[in-house]
């Protein structure tokens, strides 16, 4: 829940800490790049497009996953050179918790809104978090240079929807550079300088931490009080562990060492910590020689919302997968995993993710950076299962559902979803929410847009809700959600049988009302995804003992080279190697080769 840091009055320092709140595509990264360029943080030739999004994946997808910072030196119109610490925030709903972390280090935030597209749900949620944390919000209208820009309308929207005064919103264009200086001046004029007492005992909040191959764990901290220098002996207040501080510094965004970090500053600390566990995000750093009386309020631990099984295609890659997950975890505290065994897939891991995007990213990094061939099972949410004897279980894997005769009730996670959509798409959005078993809680017309509040089963949102919402609203609707409660629901386990054998890795939980339909669709989808084999393959969908759908995949007739003589060896080898490579991402279940996509067939139901 939100927390507010004490901000006592103190001498005004030429420092400002701020972050940017923006929806994906509204130009946050480009704007950040402009600031860095304006303040000479990097030479022009070093300005790789969107430098703050440093992971290759982030750059490709145009999103920010991890918080990053840049300490900018800006000579203001008043003649004073200010240090502006920009703390970048992710813009995707999966990473909402990272936002609150970034905001905890700031006194102010720029609310960047696309001057033609207007306010989006994610921005609203992050902006609420900011105001709850006592952070000053400065509205900025970006992409003002576009002919479609409608600043008056967007200002009205900001006031209607978010409820802050937006009359003096800054008009800017990160693309042309218009308004950049105005923003930086506003940061100095409107955002309070950091308070805090340099002479008080050290209290530094760990905002983020990651593992670097050369120096070990790097912590990004906000110093609230006191001063931290290299060679100080530090105490991590949550774990009680002590370390020798090796170096401190700031990112410009290049890392630059400093003699010290003092109250009000944001920077990095390297202290010879070997494991991320030793540098928990939200922990408070103090000095062994003069400890603070109490830690700063921390962050709550984020719980994974979505689970899926990750299995190596080749059984002998299990150890390699475990090592790769361990390495990823070093930089991603929100990734959870534990070993699991599937009858069909062998040894693998049940992994917990913040959401589907997070899952996608982890999967892609395992494949790209660690060269793993993976089979991922369909994502599922956690179900609470109340047994007749009163025991309450949490089930993260449908195949682990106990025998139904022992089950009193199954409860599914319900979330409160806020959807912001232009008026013209309200109809289809309402239909979609109803289809997905939603209950309307609120509907509010805010100028041109409508804010809808629904309670929805998380399982339905995990499935394909984002994509459907985007498609029924031509990309204009946006959403934000938070967990509400577990609620009893009539959900059943849908099993898939391949040649009569139940394949545990293909089981999914579905609501009884759609079970028949889903079963038929999944079986049909699997028929189109499983390639023809040496023998007929039967795909069945079943609920309990009842078969609800059956499809068959006709056997191939043959796979033989008509000719092969002395001269052909090399060519034939290449041909067979190519055929074999085509089977690489398939897993033999029994004697049937099943491609990765088939394990995710449930997600593809309804696609053409």
């Amino acid at each position: 829940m939100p927390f507010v840091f004490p901000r006592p009055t103190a001498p005004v320092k030429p420092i400002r800490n701020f972050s940017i709140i923006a929806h994906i595509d509204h130009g946050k990264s480009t704007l950040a790049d402009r600031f860095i360029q304006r303040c000479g943080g990097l030479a022009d030739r070093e300005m790789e497009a969107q430098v703050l999004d440093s992971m290759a994946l982030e750059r490709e997808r145009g999103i920010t996953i991890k918080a990053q910072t840049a300490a900018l030196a800006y000579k203001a119109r008043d003649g004073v050179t200010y240090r502006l610490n920009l703390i970048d925030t992710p813009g995707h709903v999966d990473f909402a918790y990272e936002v609150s972390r970034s905001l905890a280090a700031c006194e102010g935030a720029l609310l960047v809104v696309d001057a033609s597209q207007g306010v989006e749900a994610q921005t609203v949620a992050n902006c609420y978090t900011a105001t709850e944390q006592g952070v000053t919000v400065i509205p900025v209208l970006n992409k003002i240079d576009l002919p479609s820009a409608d600043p008056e309308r967007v200002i009205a929207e900001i006031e209607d929807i978010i409820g802050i005064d937006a009359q003096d919103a800054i008009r800017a264009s990160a693309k042309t550079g218009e308004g950049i200086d105005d923003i930086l001046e506003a940061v100095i004029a409107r955002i309070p300088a950091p308070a805090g007492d340099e002479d008080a005992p050290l209290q530094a909040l760990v905002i983020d931490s990651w593992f670097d191959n050369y120096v070990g764990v790097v912590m990004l901290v906000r110093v609230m009080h006191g001063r931290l220098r290299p060679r100080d002996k530090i105490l991590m207040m949550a774990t009680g562990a002590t370390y020798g501080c090796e170096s401190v510094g700031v990112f410009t965004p290049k890392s630059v060492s400093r003699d010290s970090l003092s109250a009000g500053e944001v920077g990095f600390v390297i202290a010879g910590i070997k494991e991320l566990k030793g540098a928990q995000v939200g922990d408070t750093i103090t000095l062994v020689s003069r400890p603070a009386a109490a830690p700063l309020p921390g962050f709550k631990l984020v719980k994974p919302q979505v689970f899926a099984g990750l299995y190596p295609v080749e059984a002998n890659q299990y150890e390699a997968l475990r090592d790769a997950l361990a390495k990823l975890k070093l930089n991603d505290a929100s990734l959870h995993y534990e070993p699991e065994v599937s009858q069909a897939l062998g040894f693998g891991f049940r992994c917990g993710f913040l959401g589907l995007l997070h899952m996608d990213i982890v999967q892609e990094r395992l494949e790209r950076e660690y060269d793993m061939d993976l089979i991922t099972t369909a994502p599922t949410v956690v179900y609470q299962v109340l047994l007749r004897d009163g025991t309450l279980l949490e089930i993260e894997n449908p195949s682990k559902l106990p025998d139904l005769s022992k089950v009193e009730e199954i409860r599914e996670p319900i979330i409160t979803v806020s959807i912001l959509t232009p008026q013209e798409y309200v109809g289809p959005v309402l239909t979609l929410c109803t289809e997905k078993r939603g209950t309307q809680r609120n509907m509010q017309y805010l100028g041109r847009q409508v804010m809808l509040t629904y309670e929805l089963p998380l399982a339905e949102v995990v499935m394909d809700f984002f994509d459907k919402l985007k498609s029924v609203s031509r990309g204009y609707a946006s959403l934000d959600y938070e967990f509400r409660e577990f609620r009893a629901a009539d959900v059943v386990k849908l099993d898939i049988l391949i040649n009569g054998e139940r394949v545990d890795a293909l089981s999914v939980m579905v609501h009884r009302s759609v079970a028949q339909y889903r079963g038929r669709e999944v079986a049909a989808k699997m028929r189109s995804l499983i390639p023809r084999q040496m023998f007929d393959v039967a795909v069945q969908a079943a609920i309990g003992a009842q078969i609800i759908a059956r499809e068959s995949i006709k056997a191939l007739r043959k796979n033989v080279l008509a000719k092969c003589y002395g001269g052909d060896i090399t060519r034939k080898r290449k041909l067979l190697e190519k055929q074999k490579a085509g089977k690489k991402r398939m897993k033999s279940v029994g004697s049937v080769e099943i491609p990765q996509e088939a394990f995710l067939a449930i997600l593809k139901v309804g696609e053409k």
Partner: protein
Amino acid sequence: MTRILAPGSTAPPAFRALPPLSLYVHLPWCIRKCPYCDFNSHEWRRGGDGPPEDAYVDALVADLESALPSVWGRKVPTVFLGGGTPSLFSPEAIDRLLAAIRARLPLAAGAEVTMEANPGTFERERFEGFRDAGVNRLSIGVQSFSPRHLAALGRVHDAAEARAAVDAAVELFDEVNLDLMYGLPDQAVDEALADVEEALAFRTKHLSCYQLTLEPNTLFHRHPPPLPDEDEVDAMQSAIEARLERAGFDHYEVSAYARPGHRCMHNVNYWRFGDYLGIGAGAHGKVSSPDRVVREVRWKQPIRYLEQAIAGTPAMERREVAAGELGFEFMLNVLRLTEGVPATLFAERTGVPLAAIGRELGIATRRGLLDPDPSVLRATPLGRRFLNDLVALFLRDGAHAKEPA
């Protein structure tokens, strides 16, 4: 010298006795390139003088001479003149070639000497000349007797020429093979069967029936013709197999059928993983020596080959087959034979013990693709239909070839 091997790697081959050695001679020219053909064949310019026969035979002789040290003293049971269209060469040129071969290699008594021929005009006299030069087996590229399908295949001969050529061949040679194709553009099952029926009427002792496949780097691959569907092609194959069996033919290899005692010994040598020296433009060879197996490819472009062969450097590529690859290469060949081979042939022909592929053999057997009888290496009926899947089990990742020292 003891060689120390990394765990899991295969020891280099060591042969007790070298495999039988055949000779393949490539004659690369055709009147016209067929749209389905992916062999190393070259059209000679229409209206030109025809292939440079004399120069090419000189080059072949020079090629053979430079190869002699690697096969010194080994008896040669079969010779195969392939192409291209070898029958475009004059009987005189073929006579000079075969005489030169006999003078340099110890051909076995009664050695099989096959020549490929395509039907054309005035074939009878030429065939007689080839016979007199020492050719004792003729393989004729008929493909079909149906005018419609011959046209679809872009063949230069018509049905009448095909019949005349086969008539002449069976009159002059004891051993004649006819190549037929099925699964042709717009072909129906009874049409495929009619081709086989007509071929049988000539009472040849060998038939090759190939399914038409679209190979990369062919005109058909770029512009696919309307081929019958998988079920129809399968029906053709079953019908052909049944008909030929009834006629007393033994279906001894994927596409080869022979009356008892009339198999093509040259091809059987490939399929039993024997050695072969390949001379001529683009020819491939595989020659074993006591501790290694070397593959060679000759220069492909005829003009380039002529220069290189005369200069004594006919090979464009020469590489030692890595021990880890030998298992795959062996299985790729021997499993094409319906009756397979004795299990002991593996060590004999690869120089590495059968245990080197023990794991793969187990998998193949469990999947029902390989005969469980340990004394033979033979595909099951399922394995014969899915031969690619079976053979691919023996592919090793990273078993790359190395350059010989």
